[in-house]
């Protein structure tokens, strides 16, 4: 949490310690430092091991008992192997496509619905809000949802990964809360200038809501990127996204070759498994730093307003 910026005399260390707060005892400080270091290491070491192992040679990994902390002779061979147009390349394409299309569609539906529910006096606003919130309390259940997708003829189509999870109630509530926080005067001013609902939404509301849109967009993108259960439920293996490939070849340990050529069930070498893991994680690591600053703000609007 950022405190309100305090002007401090130039040349002082960037610390916000107020004058009344005494410096903690060395023992307390040491304990805190250890605790923080443990937290950071617990998160970072697993990732380091994965990346290192994916860069090592197969021989080195075997000699070391399955993993490497610091490869002696790093190479990108594992990455070349899996990105050579095989099942992983295809799955990567599917994941990227579903994530991009899904996120855009979800944002479109969530924004329009949230905007309608945020404005007072929209016809049917209150019943629709209750209707939506009720689904949060009482989700329909796995079997009926599955049968619905089946009866709609969506089995084995990419639409089955997007349509059943198009709008997330939490994200909707976050956006609605944010829209409600925009001062009424702005809406009225736009109204007076003759702008219709759509116009107000596009040229007044959305530019003011970048933080909330960024957070909700990230939540959707991460959900689509990470989802594997619907893929395992609805899709045949030649349409699999990356997470389902990961599940099959890394978690369940099936042979990587047997889906591509139909023969041979040799478990993929450790380096290749780790490389798939890295590829599945990297997009999240890439967008994370850019959006991280919006988290608190975006999440809080939702938490407080609901």
């Amino acid at each position, binding site marked *: *949490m*950022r*405190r309100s910026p305090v002007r401090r005399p130039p040349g002082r260390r*960037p*610390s*916000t310690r*107020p004058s*009344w*707060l005494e410096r*903690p005892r060395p023992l307390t400080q040491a304990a*805190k430092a250890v605790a923080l270091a443990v*937290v*950071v290491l617990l*998160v*970072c070491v*697993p990732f380091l*091991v*994965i990346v290192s*192992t994916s860069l090592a040679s197969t021989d080195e990994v075997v000699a*070391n*008992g*399955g*993993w490497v902390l610091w490869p002696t002779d790093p190479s990108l061979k594992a990455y070349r192997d899996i990105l050579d147009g095989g099942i992983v390349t295809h799955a990567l394409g599917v994941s990227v496509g579903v994530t991009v299309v899904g996120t855009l569609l979800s944002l*479109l539906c969530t924004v*329009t619905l949230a*905007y*309608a529910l945020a404005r007072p006096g929209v016809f049917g606003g209150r019943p629709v809000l209750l209707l939506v919130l009720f*689904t949060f*309390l*009482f989700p*329909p*259940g*796995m*079997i*009926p*949802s*599955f*049968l*619905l997708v089946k*009866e709609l003829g969506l089995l084995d189509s990419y639409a089955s990964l997007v349509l059943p999870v*198009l*709008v997330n109630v939490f994200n*909707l509530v976050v956006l609605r809360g944010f829209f409600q926080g925009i001062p009424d005067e702005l809406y009225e001013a736009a109204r007076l200038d003759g702008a219709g609902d759509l116009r107000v939404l596009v040229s007044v509301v959305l530019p003011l809501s970048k933080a909330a849109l960024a957070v909700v967009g990230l939540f959707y993108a991460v959900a689509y*990127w*990470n989802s*594997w*259960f619907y893929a395992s*439920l609805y899709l045949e293996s030649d349409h699999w996204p990356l*997470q389902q490939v*990961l599940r099959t070849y*890394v*978690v369940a340990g099936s042979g990587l070759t047997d889906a591509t050529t139909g023969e041979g069930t040799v478990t993929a070498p450790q380096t290749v498994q780790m490389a798939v893991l890295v590829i*599945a994680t990297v997009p999240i*690591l890439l967008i994370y730093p850019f959006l*991280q600053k919006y988290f*608190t703000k975006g*999440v*809080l609007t939702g*938490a407080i307003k*609901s």
Partner: protein
Amino acid sequence: MLPGLAYFLLFHYGALVGNVIAFKEYVPFDGLWGSPWTGGGNFQRMFEDTAFWDSVLNTVWIAVLQLVFYFPVPLGLALLLHSLTWSSVRRFVQSVAYLPHFISWVIVVALFQQLLGDTGLLNSGLDGMGLHTVDIIGNPDAFKPLVVAQVIWKDAGWGTIIFLAALAQVDEQQYEAAAIDGAGPWRRFWHVTLPAVRPVIVLLLIMRLGDILSVGFEQMLLQRDAVGPEASEIIDTFVYYRGIVGGDYGFAAAAGLFKGVVGALLVYAANKVAHRLGEQGVYK
């Protein structure tokens, strides 16, 4: 608002209506509406099924373990982070701690396999020191502590957000006033910091209690093969295996409906308790 509304009507209320399958015997050829009614037959079978009750027991057991061992961690971490005055360190640790929340369960499970599995980091370490290796991943007895550890790794950092928000709302002047009145760090913690997070603690506790029939479905499903159903079957995986894998749709839908109804009642009751305690509750 139409596209979003259409989504809710079709995929939530449409599916909700589909719950009638719980009172039918599903015949794929006849479809949802043509299948014959069985009345409460599916429910009767379910209540007599010991495997169903085992899955209920596992679900509640895992939820309780999470409550005891996971719940305090984000709170402690938030208090620790809040006590740091060096804001760049605080922000760095926060960024690192939030990260695992965005990693999929598939990757988290794969990570744990690589680190704690029979050829993983831990065991090659133990082996290297000439000690006995331990099988954590495939051991049914170790499964419940393992899944709680996974939840802590994945979500404890993210869980601090809401506590940190509550802590940030405390007026600095309260601390200052307490300090001037002669309150030491512990007294300030007790009289200023704790009251600030108390409503959040109560709220989250109640939500967790209302949600006790839901523990990570993907997490359990991914690891069920390694340890077997005795240790890992929860209501959701039970529904999945009986219905989608086993094809007994009516029966599985009955189990799902049971979970939905009991879950909704629990959330409702928990919210009532929250209001009774003078807290804001989850809704309204």
